[in-house]
């Protein structure tokens, strides 16, 4: 009975319940968002052990800051903000925080135009033999972090453009530009696989 009530509750009410000391509410929240957050972190890091550490830190931060949670926005936005901030810390620790990216629309268009053509000429046999998952990771790794971040936030969290913009601290148009760049990049990287999946 109680489990059904928890499963019917919204993320926000669950988080409030957990902040008030109801541990079962955290279990429900964790079950809902663990996979999305983990994939978001893993596809950013590309390294499972590091992803595990970052993922654990994200949830630990949530536990630690549970008292400060206010349901002024969606819980998923708050959760992915924690994950995003943790990833930024991770990138800074690695010296990879080159936040200068192709944010302007014009520049983005230029950059997308400058991308290499899709690998349509790549032999199908070679693409088929590849581990598709590894190929996906490799393709995502080639996307610059900020564009990849916007793409992964859109894919895993289901946040709106406005929420992604708020989360990342940029405008909505910037988010669109990043998404456009990331999609174009992935199309070019995963051309053959993409065509296979589309069929």
């Amino acid at each position, binding site marked *: 009975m109680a489990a059904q009530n928890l499963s019917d509750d919204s993320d926000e009410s669950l988080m409030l319940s*957990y902040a008030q*000391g*109801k*541990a079962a509410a*955290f*279990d429900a929240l*964790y079950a809902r968002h*663990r*996979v999305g957050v*983990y*994939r978001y972190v*893993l596809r950013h890091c590309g390294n499972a052990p590091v992803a*595990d550490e970052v*993922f*654990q830190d994200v*949830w*630990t931060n949530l*536990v*630690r800051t*549970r008292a400060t949670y206010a349901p002024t926005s969606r819980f998923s936005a708050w959760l992915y903000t924690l994950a995003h901030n943790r990833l930024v810390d991770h990138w800074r620790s690695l010296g990879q925080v080159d936040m200068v990216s192709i944010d302007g629309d014009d520049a983005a268009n230029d950059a997308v135009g400058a991308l290499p053509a899709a690998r349509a000429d790549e032999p199908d046999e070679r693409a088929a033999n590849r581990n*598709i*998952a590894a190929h*996906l990771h490799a393709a995502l790794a080639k996307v610059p972090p900020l564009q990849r971040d916007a793409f992964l936030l*859109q*894919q895993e969290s289901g946040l709106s453009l406005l929420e992604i913009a708020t989360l990342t601290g940029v405008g909505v148009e910037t988010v*669109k530009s990043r*998404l*456009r760049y990331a*999609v*174009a990049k*992935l*199309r070019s990287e*995963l051309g053959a*696989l*993409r*065509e296979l*999946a*589309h069929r």
Partner: protein
Amino acid sequence: MNDDRDLHDAALDALLRTHSAETPPPAVDAAVLAAAHRAVDGEMRARPARATQPWRWWMPLAAAAAIGVVVIGILPLAPTLVESTPPATSDAPTTPAAPPPSATQPIEAARPDAQGTPMARVPVPSATDRMSAKRDAAATRERAESATKAGSAPSRPYMEMYRVTPEPPAAEQDRRANATGAVAAMPQAAPAPKAFRPQQEAAAPAPATQVPQEANAQPPRQGSAAALTQPARSPEVLPRTDAMSLEDRQKVAAAQPRTVDEWFALIRKLRSENRVPDAIRALADFRAAFSDADARLPEDLRDWAKTVP
């Protein structure tokens, strides 16, 4: 439309969803859940501690206050309790250096002789008589207690003395041996006379009157030092209370003397009925009840009382 197509790629989304099987390792799940539960449990444990913290400081004070109240309440009662505690009955011989007052000597004489010869026996009463006697004793005891509480009766009622009829253990054992099983179970319904002795003695302020009663209740054992120290007694003063019928005892109990004249009437009556031991006891109790008892005695009793030490 163009924007949407640039921002979303259905084939790409499908490819990611289809080939995404990454999940957090179970160890990480366990660690995260454990941390979350630990944090909440620690907080919940800390909350009651904080809530009860203001209550904890006064608990020792409350305990000390309770102990103090108990001590203050009990200490003033302690001497009273000690005084009202009946003296322990002992088989140890009484020292000759402290002879009992003269008023108790006749009753002392009521004991069996130094050789342990039992008192003159009377025919063993029937079981019905014993039952009625015990019921009678219980009723008598209640009346005596109520009279003692009222403070109008003498410190040791005369009826109580007769109720505690001297009865050597040998005679008691003989009686019990002759009693039927049903009757043998009856003493529990009506307490034995000895059981009331502490209450009886507690009401007596004069220890001089307690000593003979002890002597009446527990005759010395054969060959004991106490028996050797007992004075020889004449057959005249041997108690004959066994000869008192139950009706007489009831009469005695009902006619409990309260005034000097009642005492005189009772002693005269006992003498006229040739109940010398009873009369001696009545005189002893009268002496115990009044300090100037001998001076108050009338002429006819005064001469006789001079023969009674």
